[in-house]
């Protein structure tokens, strides 16, 4: 037993001296890990190595990651489309209206995306104008009708010869006129 420990210590010494020779790696040196003084990994060249204890930033990083993802999900296609439109189609140039030509309502705008929106999504300004004028006309007619109704009410209440403000009374024929036919009954 003493001999084996002596053997082991001699083997360890030999390994320490020449570490690169085969058979001298730590794993197979007589079941005891020998500290390798030459191959220690040096990560911290300067400064003290600290084990920093701080609260978890997993949730914050997860939030920022998800935020970035969901913003870029639609942001990147929109950016590509807008860049493509600006490079390949480009803005319109101002020109004089040719003789006898009535431009469409979208041809009055500069940027191609605005033109597309006014062409496909919005109503033409002429239609909007007409819609507004129609609404005004309807409201005007409503107001006029209300005023005439008030006028008619006033007349019918005053003169009483119209169908309104008729209070139902008893039938005249039900009155028994026989006591009135002779003066001193």
């Amino acid at each position, binding site marked *: 037993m003493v001999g084996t420990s002596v053997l082991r210590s001699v083997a360890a010494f030999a390994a320490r001296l020449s570490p690169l020779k085969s058979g001298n790696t730590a794993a197979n040196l007589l079941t005891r890990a020998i500290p390798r003084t030459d191959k220690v990994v040096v990560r911290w060249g300067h400064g003290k190595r600290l084990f920093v204890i701080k609260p978890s930033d997993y949730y914050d990083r997860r939030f920022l990651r998800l935020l970035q993802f969901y913003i870029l999900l639609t942001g990147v296609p929109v950016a590509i489309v807008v860049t493509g439109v600006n*490079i*390949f*189609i*480009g803005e*319109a*140039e*101002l*020109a*004089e*209206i040719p003789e006898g030509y009535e*431009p469409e309502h979208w*041809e*009055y*705008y*500069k940027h*191609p995306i605005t*033109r597309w929106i006014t062409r496909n999504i919005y109503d033409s300004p002429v239609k909007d*104008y007409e819609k*507004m*004028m129609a609404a*005004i*006309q309807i*409201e*005007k007619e409503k107001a006029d009708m209300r005023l005439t109704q008030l006028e008619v009410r006033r007349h019918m209440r005053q003169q009483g010869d119209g169908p309104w403000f008729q209070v139902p009374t008893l039938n005249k024929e039900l009155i028994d006129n026989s006591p009135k036919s002779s003066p001193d009954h």
Partner: protein
Amino acid sequence: MPADYDKGAYPEPPRQTPVVDKQTALPNPALILSKLFYYSVDLPVTTFRDAVDSIRAKNKIVYYHQKFRRVPDLTECKEGDYPCYYEAEMQWRRDYKVDQEIVKVIQERLRACQQREGHSYQQNCAKEIQQFNEVTKNFQSRCKY
């Protein structure tokens, strides 16, 4: 390239570049800097613009300024004729916007003139100043709410 500005309204001041009279063998730093600027900024930007323009040249589109018909004014509308009121109101608003833009252009001209002339602007820009006063007086008298 986009259309150039109106050279009549914004005249270029006379060039004052002196004749090059180099008396030293040392390099001219202004020349060096201008060449540096040209090669690092001007040339890349111009080539990029030309490249994009050549791509855009295939799909050229135009836009126009809309011309509106004149409609009867508010003073020419019968009383209670609300559609007429609406049309007159819309026409007045369009005219107001146009007048605002006109005033802005005149202001811009006066500003450019002052910048050009420097300290002697009061006598050299008399035309622009008179134009500006006239236009603003008319605008205030016509379009004051």
